[in-house]
Structures are given as structure tokens and as C-alpha cells.
């Protein structure tokens, strides 16, 4: 009996379950928490600094009395005062429109194959992998590629710029649209198949309408990205001081906001630098509008 201790607990210390605030472990945890907060605050400084500079440096011209001249005028040369960024705004919009017209239909069609028709086939696997690789592809290489394909033969043009942007948009559109269509519940598709729909009918009547919010989000984000791109336009669209006013002029060098910022940023004239900031503000606003649209349409309805 003596070696059986029925009240053995008495020998063990009672565990401390209370929280001790000044324990080394707790202090260490608190210190790291402080560091994380600091990192988070520091990381948001650049964004606010960029926004502040855009509003202060670019806002004076854009929200000033001569805003119409800024938005519609031609870029100034050398010591010239005044001037505007009109041709660049039009050029950017035109080239993004060309890029969208090429990449969105193609991208969605490819996504239909990858996401709905044959998700596990070898071609789908390879395409999906390459699309992922292409999203990480340096944007300037799209410019080099289009230079080799189009510019050498036909010269600098808005078409070439648009194609270069399309090359960059395509993988983003494909991956986003595929993801959106993969979210469509199998039951909805099965219900449609059960009614005797062909696969094409299922895609047009069920998958596309249901996946539309997600697809549009991806498309808007791709458009926003393309609008902000500059590297691929450097030697495809080049630059121009004049408006694109007729269809035929799409085969001439074309201005864009991003290249205007790049060109003007290095100039020794305060007027040009101010316009570079104004152009930056306009460009960021354009990109922001598409980003906000992406969020607004992105609420899935499934």
C-alpha cells in the first residue's frame, strides 16, 4: 500500500495558468508586435508620399485655371511655356483600346478551353503554365518582340504599341477568366447538360453569365496594368507631339502618357517637369478608375 500514492498530485507543482505580463516571452512577443506595426506603417509611407506629390505637383496644373489647356494642349517644346498632354491621353486610350480588342476575346476563348472544355488535357496544362510564366515576363521584352515582328517592317505605330500591350494583357486575362469560370458550380453545368445543352450552349448560357463578374474583374485589372505600362511602348509606339485624329494615323508614331512622363522627367525645364507630374496624376487616375471598376463588378453573384 505504501508505494501506491493515491494523492500523487500533491508531489507535482500546480501549473501556472495565469498570464504574466512581464515574462520574457510576453515581452519578446510585444516587442515583435511593435516591430510589425512599425513595418506596416513604414510600408504605407511610400504610397502616401506618391499621392501627396501627385496632388501637390500635378494638381496645381490639373485643378488650376488653365486645366483645359493642360488636358487638350500639345506638349511644349524646350523653353516654351504652357502646353498640355492632350495627345498623350488620347494615345494611351487608343492603344489600350487596341490591346483590349485583341487580348480580351482571345484570352476569354483560351480561358474557356483551359477552365471548362478540357482543363486536364496536355495542351491546357502547357498553356496554363506558359501563361503563368508570361505574367512574370519583363514587359520590355514584349516591346523587343513587337519591334522585331512589326516595327522593323512597318515602322513605329499605334498598332505596334497596341499589340505589345496585348501581349502583356493576354496572360492576365486568361488566368483571371479561367479562375472565374472554374468557380461556377458543377451542379449548374450539370443541370444544363441534363436539359440536353451542347457544351457550347452550357458555356454561353451558364458558365459565361455566372462567371462574368470575375472575368470582368480580371479584364479591368489587365486594362489598368496596360494603361500604366511604358517599357513596351518605348520602341513600338515611340512618341509624337500631335493627336491621333484619323484612322490612318494609327500607323504613325503615337504619344502616350507614360512615355511623356519618361521623356519630360529628365528635362531641365520646370514647365516640362510640372507637366510630367500632371501626366502622372492623370495616368494614376486612369489606372485607379479601372481598379475601382474591377472591385465594383467583382462581387460574385453565385
Amino acid at each position: 500500500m505504501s508505494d501506491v500514492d493515491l494523492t500523487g498530485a500533491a508531489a507535482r507543482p500546480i501549473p501556472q495558468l495565469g498570464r504574466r505580463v512581464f515574462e520574457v516571452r510576453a515581452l519578446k512577443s510585444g516587442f515583435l508586435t511593435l516591430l510589425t506595426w512599425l513595418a506596416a506603417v513604414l510600408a504605407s509611407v511610400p504610397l502616401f508620399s506618391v499621392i501627396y506629390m501627385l496632388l501637390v505637383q500635378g494638381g496645381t496644373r490639373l485643378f488650376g485655371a488653365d486645366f483645359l489647356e493642360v488636358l487638350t494642349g500639345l506638349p511644349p517644346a524646350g523653353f516654351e511655356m504652357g502646353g498640355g498632354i492632350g495627345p498623350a491621353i488620347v494615345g494611351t486610350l487608343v492603344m489600350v483600346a487596341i490591346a483590349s480588342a485583341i487580348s480580351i476575346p482571345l484570352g476569354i476563348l483560351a480561358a474557356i478551353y483551359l477552365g471548362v472544355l478540357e482543363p486536364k488535357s496536355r495542351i491546357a496544362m502547357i498553356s496554363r503554365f506558359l501563361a503563368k510564366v508570361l505574367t512574370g515576363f519583363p514587359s520590355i521584352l514584349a516591346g523587343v518582340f513587337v519591334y522585331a515582328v512589326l516595327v522593323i517592317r512597318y515602322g513605329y505605330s499605334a498598332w505596334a504599341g497596341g499589340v505589345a500591350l496585348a501581349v502583356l494583357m493576354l496572360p492576365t486575362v486568361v488566368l483571371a477568366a479561367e479562375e472565374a469560370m472554374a468557380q461556377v458550380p458543377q451542379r449548374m453545368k450539370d443541370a444544363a447538360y441534363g436539359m440536353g445543352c451542347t457544351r457550347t450552349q452550357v458555356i454561353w448560357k451558364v458558365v459565361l453569365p455566372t462567371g462574368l463578374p470575375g472575368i470582368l474583374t480580371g479584364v479591368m485589372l489587365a486594362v489598368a496594368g496596360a494603361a500604366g505600362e511604358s517599357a513596351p511602348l518605348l520602341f513600338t509606339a515611340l512618341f509624337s507631339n500631335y493627336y491621333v485624329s484619323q484612322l490612318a494615323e494609327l500607323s504613325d508614331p503615337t504619344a502616350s502618357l507614360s512615355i511623356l512622363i519618361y521623356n519630360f522627367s529628365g528635362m531641365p525645364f520646370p514647365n516640362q517637369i510640372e507637366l510630367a507630374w500632371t501626366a502622372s496624376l492623370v495616368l494614376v487616375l486612369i489606372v485607379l478608375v479601372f481598379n475601382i471598376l474591377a472591385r465594383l463588378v467583382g462581387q460574385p453573384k453565385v
Partner: protein
Amino acid sequence: MAKFFQAADNASSVSGPPRPVEYANDRIFRGVAWASACMIIALTAYILWEIGREAVPAMHQHGLAFLTGTTWNVGKSELGVLPEIWGTLYSSLLALILGGIFGIAIAIFLTQDFLHHRLATIFRTIVEMLAAIPSVVFGLWGIYVVIPMLKPTAEWLHGHLGWFPLFGTELSGPGMGPAALVLAIMILPTVAAISVDAFRRIPYKVKEAAYGMGTTRWEAILKVMLPTASSGILAALVLGFGRALGETMALAMLIGNANQISLSLFSPANTLASLLASNFPEAGHIEKQALMYAALVLLAITFVVNVAGLAVQQYTIRKFEGKK
């Protein structure tokens, strides 16, 4: 019951076998979709082939010496991209160290219950907006904000710690330091977003178990969450590195385009992408071919890094979703 079966005979019912036209439409549409999917493969192959074809004359002329040459003298036809390769890797590595630390810290901040979920959404929007700002705007900001801001610090560091290789030269304007700093800001959202994904994949039970054993918040993060998410974070870092390698405009505006190899943070340097951006538009025929060769080198480097990153990411996804 009888009502249900009437539906089949009802003329307004949509159910029924497809008509021949519908079969034909189906085949055509599927063919078009198949062709579009194939086009991604064709496009990638065409990009490789076109850039490769344009680079062939330069490859014949310069061979592998192109990769080890340190001068870019078109007149003498002495062309080499070693300083650019060095600049690309060095700037990306510096950016990765800085952007990686902050990116992972932010991923922890967003996923480990530091914030009320509404505040977390706002903060995530801030980080995403950072990703939306165009590269060229960051370049402009770098020229007029970052460089003037870094100058006093750089002068002090060079004056007092000039013997240290990182601070070996004076900052005269554009240079490696400002370029890497801006690059770090640009890759931060990428690293943060992919790391957040990695943390989100960890089942909630794991965190509960850790807290249940009486860990502090940071013991749970450092000893349980980080090791579990490590492969996803590695993928984030590798893909962020890939982003940094290909970044062009901000660097072309900030790095100073000087053909030299230096450890100093304050000396101007160059990268492959900014070499292309600044030399391509005015280059003659011979230089263009050499630049195509440089583009091919850049393509090869980013391809390897991105494929490695994607492979790690894929491995992570399988690790967590295979167990279901």
C-alpha cells in the same frame, strides 16, 4: 405526378436533344477555343524565336564573350553585358532583401489577427494600390523625392563609413541605392500577396493548437506558422525576385546607366532591362542585334527564376491541398 411528364411534350419546354445546327456550332466553337489555347503556346514560341533570330548575328560575332565583357563600345564593336548582368542581379537582390522583409512582415500583419478585419481590408487596399501605381510614376517620384531624401544620409555614411564597400562612393544623383529602394517598394505587394496566400492555406486548427499549448502570439508565428508557410513564402520571394529582374522604367530613370561593376550603394550602375530601354530607340543596326542578344539573356534569367518560383508555389499548393 402526371404534370411532370407533360413537360417533355410541351412545346415551350427548353429540354430536348441538340439539333444538328447546335452540334455544328458546338464543334466550331470548341475548335476556336482550342485554337486560342494553342495560341498561347504559339505566342511564347514565336517570342522566343523572333528575339532569338534577331540575336543570332550578334551571338555569332560575340559568342560567350558577350556575357563576360565589361565594355559597351559600339564604335569599336566591343560589346559585353557583365556590368548589366551584375547590376540586374545586385539591384534585385537588394530589393528582395528589403522588400522581402517588409512583404513578409505585412503578410503576418494581415493574416495573424493584428487588425480588426475591416481595418485589415483597408490596409490590404493600401498595399494593392501600391501595386497599381505605374512604374514610370515611381521613377518620377524616385527622382524628385527618394534621391534628394537619400542624399544627406548617403553623404554621412560615405563620410564616416567610406571604408565599407557598400558606402564606397558618393551619391551624385541617380544610383544603385535609390533604384533598389524604389524596386523594393515595387515588389513589396507581390511578395506580400503571395505570402498572404501561403498563410491563408494553413488550416485554422494549426493556429488553435499552437495557442492551446499556451504559446504567445509570436511563438505561434515563429515556431508554427512561419515554418508551415515556408514553402509558400519561398515562392513569394522567388517570384518577387523575378519581378525585380524584369522591372524596367523606374530603374532606367533611377540607376544612372553607368557601365560599371561596384558594390557601392551610391554609385550609378545599369541593368539589362534599362540598357534596353535607354539604348534601343537610338541604336544602329549592329547595336540593335547586340541588344537583342541582351534581351535573350534577360529572358533566360527571368525564365529560370520564374519557373523555379512557380514550381515552389505548385509544390506548396499540392502539399496543403493533397491532404484533403
